[in-house]
């Protein structure tokens, strides 16, 4: 036994790399759950974006949007249904007002991009790449938007449409990696994942919310103004975990171990986060839990550290945790 004091108090080096982007830890704040970052951190004593690995900024279309009518959320058993309607500032304000407030970059910045046509996605990404290429790191492509030029069907539900929008986005993004955020309620998730990877996506965000609804018994009508919404929170964790595992397995089988997955869906503690890493994710995103506990990222990291130290002691390399991919390491 070594007498090195660090042995009795091992620390986990959480530094990692996702699609070539260096992150101080594998925790990302999910799009739509932390606004544009700079306006949220001042709300809390001791909060800083320099404590997380990355943040995916609230999704933008080309134009600013006010979103849906209310009610926009409904609470369900261990879950949250939302139909916010992608309220957002738009692309020009993103470049002129949001990104300047996030410089120097406090963590890895993902810009979540939405569109109602392939042209819109391409236009947004080309603009971001032209006007402020250094101000952000990667694109997260929200393909759960209805394609208005194609009958309103979501881009994310067919491999063909998902690949088309990915290809166009990759062309516009310059050197920035594209992460495609996949909708999980599809018949062929692995097929769509492989199609977007084939089209040039370097990473995948898994998963977006699951469609659902709630009904108000007294009013005899849907709770949400938009009838249907996306379910998030602990209720979807087992579903999301399966999706990550399924896609990771398909990627390995296809020889695409180079593609990194950011796993998300109902993570609330360190145990959940480690499960996603074991299922094949290279990093994890915290979403709904940010509403309940804005410092959740800090708790999750502390719990991960405690669990890893307990389980593996100082001799462990955190890479052992995942089939491959996560490069965090315990230093003793």
């Amino acid at each position: 036994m070594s007498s090195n004091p660090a042995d009795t108090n091992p620390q986990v080096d959480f530094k990692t790399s996702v699609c070539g982007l260096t992150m101080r830890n594998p925790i990302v704040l999910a799009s739509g759950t932390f606004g544009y970052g700079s306006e949220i951190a001042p709300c809390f004593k001791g909060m800083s974006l320099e404590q997380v690995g990355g943040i995916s900024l609230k999704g933008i279309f080309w134009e600013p949007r006010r979103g849906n009518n209310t009610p926009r959320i409904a609470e369900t058993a261990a879950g949250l249904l939302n139909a916010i309607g992608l309220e957002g500032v738009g692309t020009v304000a993103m470049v002129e007002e949001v990104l300047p407030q996030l410089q120097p970059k406090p963590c890895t910045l993902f810009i979540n991009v939405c569109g109602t046509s392939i042209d819109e996605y391409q236009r947004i990404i080309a603009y971001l790449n032209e006007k402020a290429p250094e101000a952000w790191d990667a694109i997260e492509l929200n393909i759960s938007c209805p394609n208005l030029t194609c009958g309103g069907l979501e881009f994310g539900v067919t491999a063909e449409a998902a690949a088309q929008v990915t290809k166009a986005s990759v062309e516009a993004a310059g050197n920035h990696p594209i992460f495609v955020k996949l909708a999980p309620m599809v018949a062929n998730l692995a097929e769509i994942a492989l199609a977007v990877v084939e089209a040039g996506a370097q990473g995948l965000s898994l998963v977006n919310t699951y469609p659902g609804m709630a009904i108000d018994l007294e009013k005899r009508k849907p709770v949400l103004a938009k009838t249907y919404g996306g379910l998030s929170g602990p209720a979807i964790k087992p579903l999301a975990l399966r999706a990550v595992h399924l896609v990771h397995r398909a990627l390995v089988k296809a020889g695409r171990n180079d593609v990194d997955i950011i796993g998300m869906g109902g993570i609330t503690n360190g145990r959940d986060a480690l499960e996603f890493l074991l299922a094949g994710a290279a990093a994890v995103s915290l979403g709904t839990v940010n509403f309940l506990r804005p410092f959740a990222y800090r708790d999750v990291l502390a719990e991960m550290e405690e669990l890893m130290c307990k389980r593996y002691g100082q001799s462990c390399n955190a890479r052992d945790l995942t089939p491959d991919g996560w490069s965090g390491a315990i230093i003793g």
Partner: protein
Amino acid sequence: MLNDPEVLQPAVDGWYPIVAVDDDGRFVRIDVECPEIGKCMVPGQFVQVMPWIPPHTETKCPTPGWHYPLLNRPFSIHRWLPGRSGISILLDRIGPGTYTIGSARPGDQLRLIGPLGQGMESSSLGKKHFVLVAGGIGVAPFDAFAELANHVGIRCTMAYGVGKMEDLVFRLGNRTRLADEMERFRCKTYLASISGESGHHGTVIDLLNNQYKLCHGCFERFDGDNHDDYLLIGCGPWAMLKALAKWAEAYKFDCTVLLEEMMGCGFGVCRSCVVPGWTTTDTKTREHCNITSCRHGAVIDAKRIDWDGSIE
């Protein structure tokens, strides 16, 4: 979001001990020792409370079980504890969240995030008289308003409306214990009930209208010559706030309201609690915008709300 107002002060997020509980079977007042919030809060601000009371055990629960109900519940800060050593919240048991939080007892810990939102504007201190207009559990924040008003020498009167007398918080026959308590800040309370069981027969706006028109002298000098001296402060359901805003506009009184909508987070990120509004109170330059109840509110000028509008 870009048009979000600055926060008044950074919030704390932590577990705080309950020092007293006042429970009448339906309404519950919980006193929490929390000087961090007590010392910096402004009347009208709120706290988010986790609807989970941890069991009293020495060992730490490995996977805490607060996933149902999931969301924190927002409560107006009801009053200061003596010496600003903490705050109280006042709740009505209406669902799983309030039932859970209402079961807390002295010695339990409550998870609080706060203070959140905008409180009373400092410009309000230039007024000579506050008229607090409460609907139902909307009475909650007004003890703090009355204390502050008394402290700075602003006269304060409360009009408090309920549907039925059983909806009266801390009811004592045809009165409420809250009204007795607010007398200590020289704030007199006038009751209205839609059922007509006691007080003025009608809504709280009817009561206001009646006082104004008849000028009984109950609302001192509430007679139309000195409107700028008054500030109407409303808290209650949307329909009541809307009626109050329209009444205030018609009679040219300044009016602020405390918004409460279904909230996901309480600090402006989830965009659940938005209401249709205006960028400014200036009708010539104003543009439509979304107003978040949690961050633009809770306290906001009634003229910033587009009462008849919708977001889409």
